[in-house]
């Protein structure tokens, strides 16, 4: 079971594998490549990762969320490599008997992934390419 893929994400397949007869709520979050970033046009994004550690970190986040919301089933998949505008970079699916838990769990997964998982993105703009993140901490 891998949380990382080099291929386009099939969100419907992710959901099919997850959904149980007892579920009454399905929440899906997809992160999508947008055409702008901080006032600049974005043409595409290259995602890179410290793969074995990223797998472990996402696994720990998913396990943590399962522990906090025991009625929720959760899965996610993060795509790496070169993505163009409109493509899905991450899909997270959460199902549960009732909606509140599924919404909360899904939000927690994406928020935590953005904080700790060693994945990086390089944006290609008309001015060139730049890794996102560090320039704001100088």
């Amino acid at each position, binding site marked *: 079971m891998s949380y990382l893929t080099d291929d386009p994400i099939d969100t419907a397949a992710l959901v099919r594998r997850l959904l149980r007869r007892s579920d009454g709520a399905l929440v899906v979050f997809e*992160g999508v490549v947008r055409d702008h970033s901080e006032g600049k046009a974005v043409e595409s994004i290259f*995602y*890179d*990762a*410290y793969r*074995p*550690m*990223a797998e*472990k970190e996402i696994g720990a986040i998913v396990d943590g969320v399962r522990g906090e919301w025991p009625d929720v089933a959760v899965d996610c998949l*993060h795509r790496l490599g070169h993505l163009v505008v409109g493509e899905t*970079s*991450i899909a997270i699916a959460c199902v549960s008997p009732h909606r509140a838990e599924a919404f909360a769990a899904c939000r927690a997964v*994406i928020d935590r*992934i*953005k*904080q*700790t*998982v*060693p*994945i*990086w*993105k*390089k944006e290609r703009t008309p001015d060139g390419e730049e*890794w*996102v*993140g*560090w320039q*704001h*901490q*100088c």
Partner: protein
Amino acid sequence: MKIRLLFFAVLRDIVGKSEADVEVPDGTRAADLWQSLRAEHAQLAAYAQPMTAVNESYVRADSPLRDGDEVAFIPPVAGG
């Protein structure tokens, strides 16, 4: 002791390679390795000390290293 250093994203671009094996004295900490890198690569002077991973787990930068450790400095992450 021997340490394997891994470089990702902006760090890989600055250092010009994705990994390096280095020989360091016993008692070396990850923070010491970061200082060495800064001394070698002037561009790094502009960057704050990044998060540190040893053997695929986050650690404090002042944790002592052990022979055979795999050390990665983690630039600010941008997944999602």
